[in-house]
């Protein structure tokens, strides 16, 4: 029996009511976004506002997928986010292993240097990044989009992998070393399988971060065929379509809905990820 105090039943009931009202404020905008995407433009301009769509229409989606080039933006977003994720998994797990389990000169300095960049605003790095990408002739190419986002995503990934791999028992690694296994073998056969939970978390966090990244594709993509979804949506929303809210809501649905579905299905990994970074 614990004596941990709980609020009286009436107070608790009130708390449920308040939390539910708050929840409407947090999830409501997404519901509204989806409902509005299925309304014709005329209905969106009507006062008083209709709640449920009176005439459900797919016109907004048809327009953005055929009239505008959303299939291309969607494909670009998938390519960029997938490439950043794969790269980040490989680079961060390798460096994370070295930092966690191998004694080598420069280990502490390297770790501090990488973590230190978490404080640096992305505005500081993006002008030289652009100059660099331009020097390599990579502006408006997929590598030009991927590499800067990968560099941005890296430090947090290194931190996460290092923290997780540090907790794995040294005995496993030592006995493998005694059995004559090379470091690469140890990494691939022992560390990677054991670090699966951390890799799963890193996959989701990196993918979403890259999917949602705005600044780098805004700068690096110069023609529409390289736009990612957030860039396309932002430029449409301030351009000549700025008040076509039916189209904009359909666009927002395409950006947001895949992510919301991934999140709701895999939400425990997000919480794990926060616990994994080791602060309490």
């Amino acid at each position: 029996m614990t004596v941990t105090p709980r609020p009286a039943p009436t107070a608790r009931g009130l708390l449920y009511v308040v939390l539910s009202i708050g929840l409407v404020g947090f999830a409501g905008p997404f519901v509204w976004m989806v409902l509005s995407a299925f309304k014709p433009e005329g209905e969106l301009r009507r006062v008083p506002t209709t709640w449920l769509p009176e005439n459900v229409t797919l016109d907004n989606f048809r327009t953005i997928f055929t009239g505008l080039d959303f299939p291309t933006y969607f494909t670009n977003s998938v390519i960029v986010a997938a490439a950043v994720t794969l790269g980040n998994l490989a680079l961060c797990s390798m460096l994370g292993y070295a930092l966690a389990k191998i004694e080598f000169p420069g280990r502490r300095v390297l770790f501090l240097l990488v973590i230190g960049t978490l404080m640096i605003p992305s505005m500081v790095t993006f002008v030289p990044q652009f100059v660099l990408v331009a020097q390599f002739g990579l502006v408006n190419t997929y590598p030009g989009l991927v590499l800067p986002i990968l560099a941005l995503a890296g430090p947090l990934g290194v931190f996460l992998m290092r923290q997780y791999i540090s907790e794995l028992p040294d005995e496993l690694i030592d006995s493998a070393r005694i059995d004559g296994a090379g470091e690469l073998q140890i990494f691939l056969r022992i560390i990677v399988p054991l670090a699966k939970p951390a890799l799963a978390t890193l996959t989701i966090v990196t993918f979403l971060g890259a999917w949602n990244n705005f600044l780098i594709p805004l700068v690096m993509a110069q023609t529409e065929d390289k736009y990612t979804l957030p860039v396309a949506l932002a430029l449409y929303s301030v351009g000549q379509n700025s008040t076509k809210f039916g189209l904009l809501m359909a666009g927002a649905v395409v950006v947001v809905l895949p992510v919301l579905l991934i999140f709701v299905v895999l939400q425990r990994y997000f919480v794990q990820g926060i616990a994994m970074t080791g602060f309490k």
Partner: protein
Amino acid sequence: MVADAIPVRRPVARRVLSLRARRGLVAWGFALPFVALFAAFMAGPVVASLAMSFTDLRGTDLRNPLGVNFVGLDNYVRLFGDEVFVQSLMNTAVFVLGSVPLTIVSALAVALALNRGITRLRTFFRVGYYLPVVTSIVAVAVVWRFLLQPDTGVVNSLLRTVGIAGPHWLDDPLFAMPSIIIMTAWRGMGFMMVVFLAGLQAIPRDVYEAAEIDGASRWAQFRFVTLPMLRPTMLFAVVITSIGQLQFIEEPFVMTRGGPLNKTLSVSMDVYSQFGFGNYGYASAMSYVLFVVIVALTVVWFRLLRPR
């Protein structure tokens, strides 16, 4: 046997030495791919940006590097006479003073409610409040611009049903910044809520039991047990929130374009527009001012909230 042992020992000793060296090489081998990328796209640009901020580098100079001049602190001097930049600094200060406390206080309140206030549906509420965190800021800013439309927006429609004539949120110099602040706190709250939940769950229960036996009220328990024990979490939360929100750009980019009357122009947005004009040196100086502000605020938070 004994004769064999002697020649064998020496190679072993040599191998131990070389093993350490080899292990160092292997470690750097593991580190190399990341380090190469990091040096080129992160560490290099940090240094290059500082160097560029002391030059008059322009976009047109990329093909003609000899046209670049060292101008010392000129860019920095010019910045503080640049009315638009000073305005963007003030806006960023107002924004952060509003959004950071709002994010932190609401996140802590919801975390407390979820941690000890209720017994059921915790995961349900946690997932619901976390939804905005995983979504693109651009997309939610577009949605909020729609919600805040003066006539057809759902916010003013709701206000009308209770007899309030809502303002022209994003077009009104008085309401534009508060609108953006609320939207930012709305998006950031969920992450800090999970952070605070982790912090709260790490506080041992018997501390509360002891306080209870001593007759401490719930407020006293919060004030003298929860808050002090949450100090490290609080430090992490305010530092991360401040660093992130000082850099805001997507919200004004999509919702207001920095207007009305430059009232929502942020430093990051100003850097971006100077970059767009091709003023790379000047833009770099701006970004370094923002960097210094971020470091300074982080130091202040560490001073105020450092674990005792």
